[in-house]
Every structure is written in structure tokens, then in C-alpha cells.
């Protein structure tokens, strides 16, 4: 019987040879390092205002002292972008953690117990999915109020049905597998089957989806921040919130809009590249070939 470790080793080898995945890994690594070492990298306090810099009007662009220029209140953009990485990382991880934990539990229950439980849980997920993603998040923010924690929960909640459906489908597919039937026929207890056979194989699409979900979470939270629903304190260096209202300054200070956006794109691209690479690496159809 093929041990799960064979799957991981093969997948890792395929991943290493994928240039896209390597690029993605590089981007994400940079992003994580910047987030962790933000206080050491940022030359200024992201919330410190220096209005004297705006004497010539809004807003000075990139210079040797302020690499990414300065925003409408005299704050150093480079430092804000660097600290913003912390927020984006935190946001992505928390939102996905919320979606993953609730979604997996629901999906596992539905998939393994089947019957009425399955129908009820899946109906609930269908109802959640019938409200388009951003609108569901907006609705949740309306009930919870605006703020960083609230948008993280809102975005996490929109991901629950996706993970639930995914794990349920995966478990259902595994249940009928030959090795599961074989194990049951020799009397292996249900719990052991779940732990040693079903879960390790069902987990790969979850890993892929989790990585892609991180990318989506960062974009969605930035979107909510852009709409003004995120941290209400405008000095918070969250990338999406930094983009609010910059459309007014496109003529005079385009760097205010372009730089935070590019930061979002690069980090999201990184996760998407890794997710794609993982999907190809863990594809069962390619097993035993590449």
C-alpha cells in the first residue's frame, strides 16, 4: 500500500523544478522577512507626520531620503509599506485560519457522516455561497462594525463554504477508494482509517486551496480597506486602506496610488505562484510520471 510519505517526497521534487513556484517562494519569503523585520528595515515611524515636507503642496515623490515618497500627511511611504507587510501577513493568516478551521470541521462532518447531516450542512453552505463574496463580507461588516478584526472575520467567513465543500468532496472521493474498502474489510477501526488513509490524501487539495486562499484573503481585505471599511484610524499602514482616496491625487502624486498597489500585487502573485505549483506537484494524475 502506497505510504503517504511517497506522495510528499515526489511532490517536493516536482515543486523544486518548477520555476514559477521558485519565483513565488522568493516573493513570499521576501514578504515574510520584511514583515518580521519591519522595525529594523523601516527608516521612519510609519505613523510619524512631518508636515514641513508638504510645503510645496502635496506630495513629494520618491527621493533619496524617502524612497517611496511621502503621503498627504507627511508620512514616509517606504516605512508604511514595510509595516504594511505585517498587516497583510497577519490579515491573510487570520482570515484563512478562520475559514479553514470552521470550513474543515463542517466539511469533515458532512463528508464522513453523510446522510441528513451532509444535506443540512451543504444546504447551509449553498446559502452562504448564494451571496456574492464581497457583498457577504460587506453584510458581515455592517453587523459587526468597521475595523481591522471585523474585516478579517468577514473575509474568513466568506471562505468557510469553499473549504467545507472541498474537504467534503475530498473525503467522499476517498471513502470509496480501494484501500479504504480493503482496510475496512480486515477490520481496521473507522477512526484509524480516517486518520491514516483518508485524511493524508484528502489534505492535498486543502493545502493548495489554503495557499490560494491566502492570496484571495489579502486582496479581499485590501478591497474592504479601500472601501473605507477597515481600520478606521487612517494612520494605520494597511496597504488597501492606504489606497483610499488616492484617486484624487492621480494627477499630482501618482506614487501614492501605485506603490501600495504594486506591493499587494507582488505578495498576492507570490502566493498564487506557490499555490499553482503545489497544485501541479500534488496532482494525482501526474503521480509516478514526472
Amino acid at each position, binding site marked *: 500500500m502506497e505510504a503517504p510519505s511517497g506522495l510528499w517526497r515526489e511532490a517536493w521534487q516536482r515543486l523544486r523544478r518548477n520555476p*514559477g513556484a521558485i519565483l513565488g517562494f522568493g516573493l513570499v519569503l521576501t514578504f515574510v522577512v520584511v514583515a518580521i523585520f519591519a522595525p529594523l528595515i523601516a527608516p521612519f515611524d510609519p505613523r510619524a507626520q512631518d508636515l514641513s515636507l508638504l510645503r510645496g503642496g502635496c506630495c513629494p515623490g520618491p527621493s533619496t531620503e524617502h524612497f517611496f515618497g511621502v503621503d498627504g500627511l507627511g508620512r514616509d511611504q517606504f516605512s508604511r509599506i514595510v509595516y504594511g507587510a505585517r498587516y497583510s501577513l497577519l490579515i491573510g493568516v487570520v482570515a484563512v485560519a478562520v475559514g479553514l478551521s470552521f470550513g474543515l470541521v463542517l466539511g469533515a462532518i458532512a463528508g464522513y457522516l453523510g446522510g441528513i447531516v451532509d444535506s443540512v450542512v451543504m444546504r447551509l453552505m449553498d*446559502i452562504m455561497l448564494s451571496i456574492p*463574496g464581497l*457583498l457577504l463580507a460587506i453584510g458581515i461588516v455592517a453587523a459587526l462594525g468597521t475595523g481591522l478584526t471585523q474585516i478579517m472575520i468577514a473575509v474568513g467567513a466568506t471562505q468557510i463554504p469553499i473549504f467545507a465543500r472541498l474537504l467534503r468532496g475530498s473525503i467522499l472521493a476517498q471513502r470509496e477508494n480501494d484501500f479504504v474498502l480493503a482496510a475496512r474489510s480486515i477490520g481496521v477501526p473507522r477512526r484509524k482509517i480516517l486518520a491514516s488513509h483518508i485524511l493524508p490524501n484528502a489534505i492535498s487539495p486543502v493545502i493548495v486551496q489554503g495557499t490560494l486562499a491566502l492570496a484571495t484573503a489579502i*486582496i479581499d481585505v485590501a478591497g474592504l480597506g479601500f*472601501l473605507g471599511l477597515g481600520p478606521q484610524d487612517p494612520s494605520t499602514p494597511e496597504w488597501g486602506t492606504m489606497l483610499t482616496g488616492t484617486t484624487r491625487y492621480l494627477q499630482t502624486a501618482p506614487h501614492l496610488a501605485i506603490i501600495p498597489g504594486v506591493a*499587494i500585487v507582488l505578495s498576492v502573485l507570490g502566493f*498564487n505562484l506557490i499555490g499553482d505549483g503545489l497544485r501541479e506537484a500534488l496532482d494525482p494524475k501526474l503521480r509516478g510520471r514526472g
Partner: protein
Amino acid sequence: MLRFIVRRLLLLVPILVGLSILVFLWIRLLPGGPAEALLGERGTDAQEAAIERQYGLDKPIHVQYWRYVQTVAQGDFGDSIATRRPVVEELKQRFPATIELAVAAMLFSVLLGIPLGFIAAKRYGGPIDHASLILSLLGISIPIFFLAIILKYIFAVKLGWLPTVGRISVLIDLDHPTGFYVLDALLTGNLEAFWDTLKHLVLPAVALGSIPLAVVARITRAAVLDVLNEDYVRTARAKGVSPRLVDLRHVLRNALLPIATIIGLQTGLLLSGAVLTETVFAWPGLGTWLVGAIRVRDFPVLQGGILFVSIVFVLVNLAVDVMYAIINPRIRYS
């Protein structure tokens, strides 16, 4: 076929019921309690009493729910706190704007995405294929609102080729028999307005359609690649059928199935994305309406808007299912 449609319609009922329950509970969770949430802080005691009677807030919860369903079924979503007009009225005004934008975005993504994916598949491994994959990846990694800002910056602010905001120039007079400006311009024979509305539509539609474009191109490529390896394609070629006919009659037709499904699924994304795109271009549709509502806590608008858009989304999914069953007869028996 009819039985299939009826079965699908019946499946719709629990979802709509569940949706109405969800929104009903949501109203109860809003800060300040339902009466204050629906009337705003300036609601008088008499108004609050009227709301309580209408929604039966003093009655047991299942009575409340039934009253709520009756109210909504009659098309009464309450009045907007900000404008004091019925939510339904504003909905009727805003809805065509968003639909026009969504349709334009969908057309853009399909008309560009399918050929792109098709060519990428036929030239598998070539430069076009690689370029399409990179573009697709970028397409889903760029936030819609950021793309909208960039497009606005390049084409409207820097180059001045296209307008920055709105659906139509304020200098142009146009009658609105349908509410869809492009259609109105055609129907009233107003050529100047026609070009003007098209110019206003370009940037928002491209921004909104970017993600569907990326997804459609990718799925088309994958679907065509799968079909190209099928036996019936090889047989057709061996029979001597001209390559173009093979492409059209066998490859494209069969690849259309997964593509059609994806297009249906993209509508949800279009409705969500419209909120962000409209904000950047000050497009007077549902998106800007809902965002304005949440800023001033205009809950009747939010309730009406979210409920309405969800119902539309559910119906569109039904239409996609039906269309899928028409294309692929095997589905009708599942």
C-alpha cells in the same frame, strides 16, 4: 427537459428560504436593534411604533419572520434612511447601470479570453502559451480596484483618451427609455451619445473584466488541451476533415462545456467586483449605492441591495445550469 427545469426550480426554494432567514436574522443583529437600524437615529417614536407593528417585533419570532417574508414579497424593502425614498425606486434606477457594466465586462472577457485560450492551447508550450499563462496569473493577482486606478491613470489622466468618471458626459442630453445608456443612445438615434457612453464604459469594463478574462482564458486553454487529445479529434483528422472544421465542429464545441460553467460562475465575481470598480469611476450603479449606504448605516438599502443581488445571482446560476443541460444532454438525467 421540462422536468429538469422544474426540479432545479424546486431546489431553488430552500435556498431562497434560507437566504431570507439569513437576511432576517442579520437585521436582528444590527447595532441598535431592528427598529432603530431601519429608521436611523432620527426616527420618531410614532415611526418606531409603526415599524414594530409592521414587522411584528413584539410577536414571537416565527410570526415576525412570516410578516417579513410577506413584506419583502410585495416588493417593500422599506425606505432609504439617507434619501427617504423607497429602496425599490432607487434599486430600479441603479440596477441598469451595474448590469450594463457587468455585461460589457463579461463580453470583454469572453470575446478576448476564449480566442486567447484557444490559441494558447493549439500552440502549447510556445511563446503565446507562456504569455497567456503569465497574463492569467497577473490577472488574478491584481486587485480590481488597483487595476481600475492604473487604467484611469494611464488612459484618462495621463493620455486623456478616455473620460475619468461617470456613465456619460454632463454636456450630452439623452432620453432614457431603457435605462441602459448604450441601448438608449442607439434607440433614440443619438450617435454622439452612443460614442460618449461607449467611451465611458471602456475602462470600467476592462478593469472589471480582468479577472473573468484571466479565468476564461485559462479554462479555455485547459479544456481545449483536453479535447485535442481525444480520440474523436484524431479520427476526424484521419478522415481528412479540414483542420478548421475539426477545430470548430469538434474541438470548440466540446470545450465549450466547462467554459460555459465558468462563465456562469463568474457572474458572482462580476457582481462583487462591480462594487470596487464603480467606486473608482464614480459609476452610479449598485456598487456605489451600497458603499454609500454602509458609510451612513443606511440598513434598508443594504438589506434590499444584498437580498436583491443574491436573488439575481441564484437565478443566473439556474440559467447557467439550464443552458449547460441544453448543451450537454447527459446532465438532464442527473
